């Protein structure tokens, strides 16, 4: 397995180089260093000298991809692409174009995101599996039919509706929890309740349907028929055999998500005032802050690769027949 992991990690290097290059090209197709300077210096009284000084101070005064004034290797290394990329691979994100330390910002903002995302994932998983097993148990009945109808209806509703509806009902009409906000430490609990409830309810439709499909696929397999034939009760068949064997695709979906959980959710965090990472990249794109954009895209790619690797490893745990060679 070690060899497999090392091989996968080596494969990650060209992927990350490609992701970084693509981010660079896409960003600078839309924004020029002059645009960035104007955005950061504000709308009033911006002179050419101020723009040049800003670019120089932030390292955007060089050619983008190739420095024709330099020769040899310097033609490639004395460029914005090279200088802004090389430290990324050492996980040194440096400072944002607005002057904040990016690593410090990420380390501060990831915890509120996790505080919402982890309980939402765990509670959601438990509820979705329970509902899906119930529907599978009552398969081909009215309960199953109407359960699927409700799931489809819930899937069709925008997550924004759940957020605004939840805030209106629970926070505004019933006055049970704050409509939005956040606090540090143990004081955070009352701000987590509503986003977690909304996140869980918003995911029930899709989650239940997906898991129900997985369970129904397993339920018709030979080993299930054998289990029933030897006289096991239906709930024993479901919990002991079906659930266990359906874990592999569930695991695939969940484990790949785990590393990216701390990246947060844009909508939930914006509406509930959660100071997480959800809007960090979007805000950076709006503010033309290339330093943050490249760091977050790079980090996202790394985490996704790690997530996929963890998924592969988790297969071997869930199914001993799987070997990573």
């Amino acid at each position, binding site marked *: 397995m070690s060899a497999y992991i090392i091989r996968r990690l080596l494969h990650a290097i060209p992927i990350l180089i490609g992701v970084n290059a693509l981010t660079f090209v896409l960003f600078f197709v839309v924004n020029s260093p002059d645009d960035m300077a104007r955005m950061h210096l504000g709308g009033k009284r911006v002179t*050419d000298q101020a723009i040049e000084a800003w670019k120089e101070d932030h390292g955007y005064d060089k050619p983008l991809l190739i420095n024709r004034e330099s020769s040899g290797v310097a033609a490639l290394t004395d460029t914005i692409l090279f200088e802004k990329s090389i430290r990324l691979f050492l996980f040194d994100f440096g400072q944002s174009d607005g002057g904040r330390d990016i690593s410090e910002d990420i380390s501060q903002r990831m915890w509120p995101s996790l505080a919402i995302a982890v309980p939402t994932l765990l509670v959601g998983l438990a509820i979705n599996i329970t509902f899906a097993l119930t529907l599978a148990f009552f398969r081909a009945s009215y309960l199953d039919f109407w359960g699927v109808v409700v799931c489809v209806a819930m899937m069709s509703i925008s997550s924004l509706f759940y957020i605004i509806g939840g805030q209106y009902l629970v926070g505004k009409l019933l006055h049970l929890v704050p409509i939005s906000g956040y606090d540090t430490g143990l004081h955070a609990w009352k701000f987590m309740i509503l986003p977690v409830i909304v996140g869980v309810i918003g995911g029930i439709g899709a989650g239940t349907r997906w898991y129900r499909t997985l369970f129904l696929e397993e339920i018709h397999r030979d080993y299930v028929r054998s289990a029933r034939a030897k006289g096991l009760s239906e709930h024993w068949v479901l919990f002991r055999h079906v659930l266990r064997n359906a874990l592999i695709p569930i695991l695939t979906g969940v484990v790949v998500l785990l590393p990216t959980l701390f990246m947060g959710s844009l909508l939930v965090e914006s*509406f509930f005032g959660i100071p997480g990472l959800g809007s960090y990249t979007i805000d950076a794109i709006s503010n033309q802050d290339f330093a943050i954009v490249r760091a977050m895209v790079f980090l996202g790619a790394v985490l996704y690769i790690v997530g996929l690797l963890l998924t592969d490893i988790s297969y071997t745990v869930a199914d001993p027949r799987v070997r990573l060679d």
Partner: protein
Amino acid sequence: MAPKVPQRQTVFKVVRPALRCWKAALAASLSMAIAGCSQQAWNNPYRAGEAAGPIFYGSFAERPKHLDPARSYSSNEWSFISQVYEPPLQYHYLRRPYTLVPQTATSMPEVRYYAADSSLLGADAAADAVAYTDYVLSIRPGIRYQPHPALARKADGGFHYWPLQEETLDKVSALGDFEHNGSRELVADDYLYQIKRLAFAPNHSPVASLMAEHIQGFADFMQRTKVAHEALEKVDGRKPWLDLRAFDMHGIERIDRYRYRIRINRKYPQFIYWLAMNFFAPMPWEAERFYRQAGLNEKNINLHWYPIGTGPYMLTENNPNLRMVLVRNPNFRGEAYPLDGAETDRSAGLLEDAGKTMPFIQRAVYSLEKEAIPRWNKFLQGYYDNSGIGSDSFDQAVQFGGGGEASLTPTMVERGIRLTTAVETTIFYTGFNMRDQVVGGDSERARLLRQAIAIATDYEEYISIFRNGRGQAAQGPLPPGIFGHRDGEAGINPVTHVWHKGVARRRGVDAARALLAKAGYPDGRDPATGGPLILNYDTPRAGPDSKAMLQWYRKQLAKLGIELVIRATDYNRFQDKMLKGTAQIFSWGWNADYPDPENFLFLLYGPNGKVESKGENAANFNNAEFDALFLDMKDMDNGPERQKVIDRMIEILRVESPWLFGFFPKAFSLHHDWYRNAKPHLMAKNTLKYLRVDGNARVVAQQAWNRAVLWPLMLVLLLLMISVIPAVRGFRTRERSHAL
């Protein structure tokens, strides 16, 4: 099987204490929650017991980027730093028109005009005769800085945190983590140091180029310090501290411990307004040296995030992604609430605190609320003391009477909510690119075309549709409250409006069509093509939210038979078009820096052309008479002479029509009954110190408005329990059923 029994017992023994702990923790949490809930509403976003105190609760929608007074230039940033930093002058809170008064200064600056031979001129000296002007400022002795680690000194006089020890650095993650704080007296040198900071290139001050034109020696200082900084950077690594005290700036001088002089080129009467802005607030050199130490910037501890000032408040929590907290500066000297104001202020209760020592609020908590819906709902629940009004909630809050006057809806009145309105010192206009072949230029044809469009574009309708009536159609470039603005019949734009029964009425479309025909475009037809005249509107508003508004612009020109093509693009491309002069018609806005007509009329001064000099004259308007009058006007004192010049300048603009004057937005603001001394001030941002909050009244209202409604929760639980019964029955039936 026998060995399994003790194993089970062991497991059970391990689990039981854990269970007990869990139960105890649950019981404790519940009792804590219930105890907490008994004191305040469940949905209260603040910690228990806070709201009764003199605390202000507000919100902000956009996180500030820079809190360094040399760099910060946007109103959302100034809302915070203006409570911390103190320039020598400030605006009087209550007087209208806006009036400057001393803040840290003992009196208004002594202004001395000098001729080229350095002879002193009189106060009424003509601008041409003045070679340079001195502003002499005296500051009050005894003013002290807020407690700050940069000023903390040991018993032997040395600094606690200079140089910063590595073990100290390891222990801190925010400014509040430093154990020692210190203070010192404000001196004239601190003001001079800040002026030098404006000129220091790495600070990227947005006013550096403007000040280089005015303050003597500023440009030279910029150059010298830039060279010195680059040399130091090579030796010392990135972002070293350059001691600006070692470099002289010819135009600024320390007279004594409490007095200093600023020398500017020629006569520039508007300079006095800059002395009320944060750019000219004092900065202790120790703070900049402290923040430049290695390791602090990596923890985001720098001047951009932790201001240091002498003002009534200090920023103790800066988490712009969550909350900003200002706390009363214990070293603040105290300042008396104004004794006088506008005529209506006494009846409005705004002079009840006259002469009392400010600030009244001890703590101000600003929470980030990016979305309008939660912000509005929390205001209605009493968790924010004041609020703006978004389009979504406008009808819920405001109604208009028969005469067009705005008032609160009965629901708002019932809650004791108050409304304040004020026309902002801002203009949103639509401009013609005067370099354009069709709409620009000095020809009679183009002039008549612009005038026709100015008549047809019904901004009264725009304000009604898109701004819920929150605006005033502009008759010229000067908003109300700015010297030179005229109200009533004398103030109407005769090209676009007529005075009818005491109100300004827009001329009919027929008048516009007549002008268009005279311009050579009968019924909007272009004689060159025979088809409709096609004009282009360049805008960065490409989203679906702007679709209705862009359609409205098309409709206005369609009244004349002109086809308006919307060229929507992103902001960067739009800026690029403006800089290159390839846009044809565009919309733009300007928010006043200071309440002087020069700050609006310079937007049309020829040498400020966007294309030629990257200035703020986005229309690239160039009129010799206007430019000459502008040069005269900008140096004049307010009075009949200046009014006459301004009248002529505005007359030129109305005839030439480089702008459709658009509208002046009207700010509507709501606040609760317990929030006192609120008066909109469109120039000053340091207004927190004047405000007062009755915390007890707020607590009573919050509890009355936010009683938890539990029965739906109980109902849901009951329904869930009931639904379990058929589920269990179904489960049992299924379990008992046969396969076949």
